[in-house]
């Protein structure tokens, strides 16, 4: 009883800062609230119809899902082997670990601006300069075509995220008892077999945590595409969060922005819950 009293401040904060705004957002999504006038009218599902008939919003939905899935898969695929390597003994191991971890320290918004320079379409752009000096290649406008812009945004996010997730996996790797590997070696298991039958199952809880963070973070992505491509070219790298902010604030369409936010919250909740269910099943099968 006494211990549950400690929960009261947390519950109060949760209700005041999360539940109430969420309920208000749902309410506004059913009105014509502009963000300015307090004189609102009930409009039913009109704002939801607007969301589903706007091509730019649908493009934003497509890219957001593409970004979340691609970054989750690629970061996981690269981070696990990297963690395995970083877990071995070699000269300068701590420095290498720090370097990889450092990539995730700056904010994504800053990284976006830095990469905008690296991927500059001019001859003087970093990537173009290197390609020209090595192969005599002409300058490439990396962010000026829809497909290459999408690939660049995803790869920059992977580059920035691999180190942090490798560090997460490293913590799980260090918790694997060494005698499991010793026993496997005595039984004649090779490196690949040890990885498949010991490392991967033991990492399953870490994979669940990492992919959960990646998927939820990927669906909420805003800062990197905004600073790197501003959502362009066209609406190729536009994201849902960008649309929510632009519609709700910049355009004074808090009604449509609220509808978008409600759909987004529901979609994220569904995807993340489904992902957790699948992850838990895989974890049980591997363990």
């Amino acid at each position, binding site marked *: 009883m006494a211990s549950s009293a400690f929960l009261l401040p947390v519950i109060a904060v949760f209700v005041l800062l999360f539940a109430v705004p969420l309920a208000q957002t749902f309410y506004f999504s059913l009105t014509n609230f502009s963000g300015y006038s307090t004189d*609102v009218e*009930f409009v039913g599902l009109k704002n939801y119809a607007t969301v589903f008939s706007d091509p730019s919003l649908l493009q934003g939905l497509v890219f957001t899902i593409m970004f979340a899935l691609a970054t989750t898969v690629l970061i996981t695929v690269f981070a696990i082997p990297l963690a395995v390597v970083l877990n071995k003994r070699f000269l300068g191991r701590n420095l290498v670990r720090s370097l990889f971890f450092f990539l995730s320290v700056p904010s994504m918004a800053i990284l976006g601006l830095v990469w905008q320079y690296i*991927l500059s379409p001019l001859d003087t752009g970093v990537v173009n300069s290197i390609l020209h000096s090595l192969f005599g290649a002409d300058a490439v406008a990396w962010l000026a075509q829809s497909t290459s812009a999408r690939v660049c945004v995803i790869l920059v996010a992977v580059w920035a995220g691999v180190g942090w997730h490798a560090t997460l996996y490293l913590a799980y790797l260090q918790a694997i008892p060494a005698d499991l590997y010793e026993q496997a070696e005595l039984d004649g298991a090779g490196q690949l077999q040890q990885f498949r039958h010991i490392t991967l199952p033991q990492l399953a809880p870490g994979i669940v945590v990492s992919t959960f963070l990646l998927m939820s973070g990927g669906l909420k992505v805003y800062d990197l595409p905004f600073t790197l491509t501003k959502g362009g*070219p*066209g609406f190729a790298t536009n994201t849902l969060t960008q649309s929510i902010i632009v519609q709700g604030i910049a*355009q*004074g369409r808090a009604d449509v922005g609220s509808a978008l936010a409600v759909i987004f919250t529901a979609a994220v909740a569904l995807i993340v819950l489904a992902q957790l269910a699948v992850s838990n099943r895989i974890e049980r099968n591997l363990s």
Partner: protein
Amino acid sequence: MISNIASTAVSRRQALAGLGMASIAATLAACGGGGNSGKTTITYLSWETEEVARPLIDAFEDANPDIAIDFSYSAPTAGYFQTLQTRIAGNQQPTVHRINPETKEKLIGEGLVADLTDEPFMGAIADANLRAYEDDGKIYGASFGAWAAGVVYNRDLLAQAGADDVPQAWDEFLDLCKQLKGAGVTPYRESVQDIPSMFQAFLGAGYDLAGDERGEKKIFTGESTFAEEWPEPMKQWYRLYDEGIVGAESVSLTGTQLKEDFIAGNLAMFITGPWDLADIAASDLNWGISPMPAAPGGEPFATGAPDPGFAISASAQGEELEAAKKFITFLASQEGLRLANEHIGTLVNTSDFTVEVAPEYQGLYDDYLKTSKIYLPMNYWDHASDALQLEGIALCQQLVQGQITVEQVAAGMDTKLASL
């Protein structure tokens, strides 16, 4: 029933917002130490930092000892209007705040700002600035400055093609670009991360020649469409791409990258405004700035827009309203304009005040900025200008990528407008 629910919910929201604002107000009052007793206090939401705005505030308070300004700041542009929106929704609208093209529809349409049409301080305001904050014959924003962008050029690089200035006819401009390209010089670059400036100038020049002060407003009254207004000037601008002078890299080029490329001596011409001139002047380049060339049947023109205006809350009454008017009267005075230019860098364009500008910029200032020969489409879009601007940028980017035609850009704008 629904209206009851609505009013209940709104009053709860107001109550919450009121509680929040009350706590903020209490905190601010505690900080302020109650030094404004006996004075009329007006609230002012500035988008200049206090350090920059303070000389104006102090000068006004010195001249009006019976008035105190409760100053607050929010960074422009999106953040500023988010703050303003939040304060309005919480019944805490500042007495004086800024109004800009993207927000005027809501602020005027919702009856949130006062009609300033007949105020004496509006007397010297430039035509473009009056038009920018006009609705149905009434003016709701007092704007004292503007900006104008032109073609910045490297004289030494132009000389390689035998030119000493930017040609003022579009065909000649394109010919010069081709000559420069032939001489191994990058002639011209632009950024299509906004609606292209050259196209905007062609639009403005057309309206100016026709004596049409309403510009694209006709689209929003149903008298015209983007399909009627845009294709001709857009086709002229698109010749840059059609004739191979500029490539699709424009889509991802930023203004900063253009400026740095120009300063590095790699670029002969690009379009920019006052914000870049200090950096260009600090370089060793032999440079100049010229208006945009005239499209066939047009005239040289400049892209530009009035500064955000000062608006007074429609709910201000009595002494508060009079104090707010006095504040804007001071901002419109010779001292106020001088301080604004000195501390904020306002390029004043009122008929009763002239500022000193860089010698290279003098022509643009005198002949375009001061005479209202500047055009920015968004200033004439009476409805959902922000949404349309985003759509316009995206469509122009698709055009540059070769995905759609000029006619499809215009049709896309009409479709977007119809959906809003």
